[in-house]
């Protein structure tokens, strides 16, 4: 029916295309290309409220993703959330007085942590804690405050 050589060439082509598609899915579609292995170093930060932040949320600096949230715990003594940030090891020159804030991507988007560098000479090492933190804004509280202040303004007049 077919020459054996033609058949084999087609099968070879099929297998090659199949693996190329898998490779493309792994490299181009998934997060493999943005993950630089498991190295990197971990620092912690304490927040009063992290509402909506999740493990694997992004950690950014100047809008560039430099790491991810690796763990979230609750400290029963201080009633604070303890968030571990794993930062890629190539970004190892971050000052110790860097501040961490929880932001929202877009109005209703997901939460991420934005770092803002300070001016200290000393650099952040593995296991350090970021002292300056700002909790996430909670939309309901904001609206509540806004309505409250509106109502207070109305009373004055």
């Amino acid at each position, binding site marked *: 029916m*077919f020459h*054996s050589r033609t*058949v*084999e060439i*087609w*099968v070879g*082509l*099929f*297998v090659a*295309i*199949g*693996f*190329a*598609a*898998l490779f*493309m*899915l*792994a490299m*181009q*579609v*998934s*997060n*493999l*290309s*943005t*993950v630089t292995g498991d190295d990197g170093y971990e620092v912690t930060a304490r927040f009063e409220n992290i509402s909506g932040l999740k493990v694997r949320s*992004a950690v950014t600096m100047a809008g560039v*993703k430099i790491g991810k949230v690796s763990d979230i715990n609750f400290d029963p003594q201080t009633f604070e959330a303890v968030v571990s940030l794993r930062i890629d090891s190539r970004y190892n020159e971050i000052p110790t007085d860097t501040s961490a804030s929880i932001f929202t991507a*877009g109005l209703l988007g997901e939460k991420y942590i934005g770092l803002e560098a300070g001016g200290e000479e000393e650099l952040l090492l593995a296991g350090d804690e970021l002292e300056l933190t700002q909790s996430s804004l909670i939309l309901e509280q904001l609206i509540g405050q806004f309505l409250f202040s509106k109502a207070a303004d109305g009373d004055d007049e």
Partner: protein
Amino acid sequence: MSEKKHSPLTPLLDWLQQLGRFCLGFFERLGRGHLLLFHIVSGIPGLAFKWRLVVFQLYSVGVLSLLIIVVSGLFVGMVLGLQGYNTLVDFGAEESLGTFVALTLVRELGPVVSALLFAGRAGSSLTAEIGLMKATEQLSGMEMMAVNPVKRILAPRFLAGVLSLPLLAAIFSAIGVMGGYFVGVDLLGVDDGAYWSQMQAKVDLHDDIYNGVIKSIVFGIVVTWIAVFEGYDCTPTSEGVSRATTRTVVHASLAVLGLDFVLTALMFGEG
């Protein structure tokens, strides 16, 4: 005898007998199917010396299915791009189109649709081929010559099916992502960088892509097993072969859809 015929219990007993026969037949087939699977799997190591048989089956099962997989992958991806865009643009979230298209394809549509197409394209032809071999007594002829038809005929086809479907599903997903890119970025004006970067940010290699591949391997096993079994177990007449072919497509499709729910619940249920 005549006394028995007039007993009021007779219709009930007849009905019970039918039910019993049906159940026994069902379990008999189930048992034969599993025995056959066992024999096929135990015949696979022997194929290392008859690699040519598998290559030829890879051609007829895999290569010949390429066209339908590529074309439907492209169109499914394009439709996803269009529909996703129309929905997402209402929320101003059309940048997430890449994530939407990629996750839908990699997790669900890639494995499932290619398994359904595979059942229709390759499964039916496997059943018809094996069924005809049985009807024309080629299989018994082989047995006469002390060639085991399960190892010689069924095992290469089974192995080729199991190897082909994951590759076909990967091709389907990759082409679909391109199709979504074509419609979303080139035609509807979603940002090129956002399409890929949002996709890369949200699609996880382990959680999404590996699980999709595992799904398609399971579907490959189930579809090829059903196809091969129906052919081997069919009534050796032209009507029997045609019935077996129909059953292959119906049962394989139902099994794929049912298993997909189970696998999805196991893989993504907690997340």
